[in-house]
């Protein structure tokens, strides 16, 4: 099982980063919380694994399709 990119599915602002590289996560765990139209939109782990990288910072604007984190094995 290789690395898996995690992408934003919408244009939004990064509100909170809930995990750090090296953290072990389960499928469905919240990695990053985005904000759009005043709502908090959680981005969750598509599968279990170890967070390989977080590619955004809080308050940063992200676009639909942008890679925001990488999940490792």
């Amino acid at each position, binding site marked *: 099982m290789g690395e898996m990119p995690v992408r934003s*599915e*919408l*244009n939004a602002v990064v509100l909170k980063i809930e995990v750090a590289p090296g953290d072990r996560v389960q499928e469905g765990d919240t990695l990053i919380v985005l904000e*759009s*139209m*005043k*709502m*908090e*939109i*959680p981005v969750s782990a598509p599968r279990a694994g170890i967070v390989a990288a977080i590619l955004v910072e809080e308050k940063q604007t992200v676009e639909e399709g942008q890679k925001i984190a990488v999940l490792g094995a």
Partner: protein
Amino acid sequence: MNWRAELDELRLRERLAHAMGGPDKVKRQHDGGRLTVRERIDRLVDAASFHETGAIAGSATYDENNELKSFTASNSIFGRARIDGRPVVVVGDDFTVRGGSADATIHEKPLMAERMAAEFRLPIVRIIEGSGGGGSVKTIETKGRANLPGGVGTSLGFHYTTANMAVVPVVALGLGSVAGLGAARLAASHYSVMTKSSAMFVAGPPVVARVGQDLSKQELGGWEIQTKSGAVDHAVETEDEAFACARRFLSYLPSSVYELPPRLENDDDPERRDDSLMQAIPKDRRKVYKVRPIIEAVVDRGSFFEIGVMFGRSVVTGLARLDGRPVAVMASDPYFYGGSWTATACQKIVRFVDLAETFHLPVVYFMDCPGFLIGLEAERAATIRHGVRAMAAINQTSVPWCTIIIRNSFGVAGAVHQPAGRLALRYAWLSGYWGSLPLEGGIEAAYRAEIDAAPDPAAKLCEIEDRLNKLRSPFRTAEAFWVEEIIDPRETRPLVCEFARLSDKLLTVGPSAFPIRP
């Protein structure tokens, strides 16, 4: 004396037709992981139900005694068949014969398929691969002249490609590489499905390379591109899944606009009250929730069939059943822009309510709409233009309509939660929250002077917000009868099932007042 010799010749010609493009081409089709058109039709329709029209039409060569020497069938195959016992027309491209292109099609064949669907009022399933009977550059040489698209004798096919959508259900399956006319026949449908190994484009990679884009088939028109763009409704792994999707879609629809949607036996209690609905909406208004489990908790168990999951994602659309009756279901998805109406969501709504209107499906709308998407990108996308088109589409419906306000209803997009000018049923959940515009940001705009004049503007803002929040209880709105009913969310299924039963008397057959566009 009998007709044995003639019958033998007929059977011989049929056998030659069934050989399609020959063993090598059939092997190539299989090696590419794709079925032949005849295998596709067999797997799509009820066992042994396909009755072909024009099987032996094609091109033949004869020897010096005028005896048949060779025969290649047309690459358009069509006929009638049954799906779940109901008659349909199926038309499919045979990619093993000249890659499905026009010079081997005999264009009257796909045309007759479309006419048969229209005149016998039967759903049509188009199985598309290649250029879908469209011309290629080579056609100039095989025909000896250049074709004028839509020229004399060829415009009727284009007529039926779109006109049939106002008469009968049109399902299109893109299996393989689909380009040009094939792409148009795929998109001009009520429901389209492609396999994930397929690609669809107006023009393929070699042509696109000439305008300076060096892309693979998948990069240019793969499933992610086409389902996100909304050009294709759904993508699946296997051809068998595509056939299953086509059958399921048709199960909710009448065979034509001259019939009502078929009611099925239902064993899910219409009075069922699902406790999960009491916890479905978070009290914190900034928190989102999953809307699909809400839909599934309300409609007949297992009956929700989503359409267009990858496009205009702040609005979910699909077909379902209530007490066995097919209905069109629309819902907001707060995971995408808080459920606000984007330009693409509005395009999706137009197409979806037009489908409901065309085939006499009552609409149930689970609404949580904070308004149109706002901001520069939204303005650039002409959100308001697409928004008022969605408003017009909803206002133009005549099918029965029921709206459940499950949380937000703000602004103009909030107002478009039921057709204006006629009575629809409307229920608000306890979590209902509404206004001309949201307090956040709205207060700064409306109370500017008061806030600026205050010694502590931030404290003043909070004070005004508190004041307004006390007034925003949905009960105050109900007290004034500005909303007719607030309900326990667990009452939703009994009430929408009642709505579906009431709709029985209101549905009338016939073409819609305006013909649907693709």
